[in-house]
């Protein structure tokens, strides 16, 4: 009973300021102007919604893939090179402690027409005119990958750290060269961490707002931007419907991932 008592203040807070508003918001999607499912029924024929939904999925997919490919080697270095572990960890966490807003501005400065990136390429004589990167899907993908990278690295590093080092020795002793040991032992045993990282990054990317709004293109908007637009237009019912769809999508993905073996464990705190 005591654990529940200890958690009671937080539970009360969450119910009052989180659960009730969310429920109230979701209710609007079925009760505005009167009890109806018309907002949901209209979605399959709503071209703007379909395009935005597809774009959001696509962006999340690219960002997840990019952070996986960039993050896995870093996670491996973090675990296998104890001398550099602290330096690597600080490099990962430093941006993590900075506001998303600040980091998105930083990317605007870097990727703009007269940003550092273009200036450097021109100075090096590689291009004549500045490239258009800012306000394109590419800018969104780059900035979001950077911002979400720690969410990929940390679960993977955690999974890698839990691999018994004697397994790697055993593999080597049994005749497996290092790269084969990686493919046959390290990689499969780190899959729960990979799944956890992919899940975190993908679900966070689905709902990302600030970064795509600041560095992304005007045409390739995401669900969260569409919701914001509709709220601006005071179209609360439509915004609530989109939110419900986004929430349901995220929950469905989380539910599916939790059925994968070992993923539930990857999220569990290490009690030892």
């Amino acid at each position, binding site marked *: 009973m005591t654990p529940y008592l200890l958690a009671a203040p937080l539970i009360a807070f969450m119910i009052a300021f989180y659960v009730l508003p969310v429920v109230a918001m979701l209710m609007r999607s079925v009760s505005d102007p009167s009890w109806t499912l018309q907002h949901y029924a209209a979605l399959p024929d709503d071209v703007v919604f379909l395009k935005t939904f597809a774009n959001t999925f696509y962006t999340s997919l690219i960002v997840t893939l990019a952070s996986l490919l960039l993050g896995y080697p870093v996670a491996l270095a973090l675990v296998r090179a104890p001398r550099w572990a602290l330096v690597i960890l600080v490099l990962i966490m430093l941006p993590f402690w900075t506001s998303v807003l600040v980091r998105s501005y930083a990317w605007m400065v870097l990727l703009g027409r007269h940003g550092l990136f273009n200036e450097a390429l021109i100075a090096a004589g590689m291009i004549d005119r500045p490239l258009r990167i800012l306000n394109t899907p590419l800018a969104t993908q780059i900035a979001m990958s950077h911002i979400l990278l720690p969410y990929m690295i940390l679960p993977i590093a955690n999974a890698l750290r839990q691999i018994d080092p*004697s397994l790697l020795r*055993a593999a080597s002793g049994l005749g497996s060269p290092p790269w084969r040991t990686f493919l046959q032992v390290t990689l499969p045993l780190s899959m729960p961490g990979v799944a956890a990282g992919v899940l975190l990054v993908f679900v966070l990317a689905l709902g990302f707002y600030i970064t795509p709004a600041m560095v992304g293109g005007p045409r390739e908007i995401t669900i969260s931007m569409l919701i914001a637009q509709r709220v601006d237009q005071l179209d609360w019912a439509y915004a609530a419907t989109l939110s419900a769809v986004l929430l349901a999508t995220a929950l469905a993905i989380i539910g599916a991932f939790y059925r994968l073996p070992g993923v539930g464990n990857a999220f569990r705190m290490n009690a030892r």
Partner: protein
Amino acid sequence: MAAELNAVNGSGRGASVLLTDLEKRFDRTNAVDGVSLDIRSGEFLTLLGPSGSGKTTTLMMIAGFETPTAGDIAIDGMSVVAMPPYRRNIGMVFQNYALFPHLTVEDNIGFPLKQRGVPKTERTKLVGEALELVQLPGYGGRYPRQLSGGQQQRVALARAIVFKPRLLLMDEPLGALDKQLRENLQLEMRRLHADLGITFIYVTHDQEEALTMSDRIAVMNDGKVAQVGRPEDLYDRPCNRFVAGFIGESNFLPAVVRDLEDDIVVAECEGVLVRALCPARPANGTKVTLTTRPERLRFADTLNGHAPQNRMSVTVTEAVFAGERCRYLLRAADGASIVLKEPSSAAIRRRQVGEQAEIAWSVADTILV
């Protein structure tokens, strides 16, 4: 690679291993400090010692997981110091078994075969044979976590021998198992060693295990080899105090050399003259330590007929009945403590504390160290 090694020295099914002045330095301490050992083809050699004696580090250097700071390791006459572990073709069983948790028993055992490019059908056949050999037929489809500790150890053993290495290394493989299972597996490993005919190097801190299983034992202490020999040699003829104390129980009595006769030394100990075997020839007056095993001492009045040469008067200070034997703590004339173990029998009178007695033992059971 197996063919490569066989070509170098085709004699016997087991590899010979030659360690020359092997040294491993960590920071400022020598974990292994000048170990030289000549391990013969097909031998069961045990590295025995307390924790921190360097036995596991020595094994890890043979396997290739540690690089020696000095010295050489030659397998079948070929130096392997510069060779990575995955090219050494050595079977290895780890203390915690190190089975791959994501692979079935069959795939675990097939792992070394897969690395060697053995085709699938051949692999299945060899894995089946290995499972028969460790008495686990039909377990191929299970995962390691579904097996008991003893079964996991058998799988680890099967995995280490399935690719027919000429050398098998074992690092305290039975350490985590209970006594009964350990004794069964000890016998099984002896049988396996006899069947396979390959060289076994076995690391343990359990002297009983070392005595029962090994052809020869290398006792290690402080990174050095204290003594190498057959189990009975180490037990009957320990050549230093460490070995005498580490293997079995020993009485240590201070003594002074008084006379030398052929290969026998006469020493004065607790006021009486005692005869002892001594390969070294200490000069008269040298202070030495006289060593005897508790179970080789007898109360003189229980011996009828043959009379061992060494005798001493003692007082019983403690008497413990321990089932198969009685254990007595005795005090000699000058105050030294002596332990005596007597096989129990209803026909033998139990001594009382405070009783005077005379003990006797033979010269062959008396060693000077």
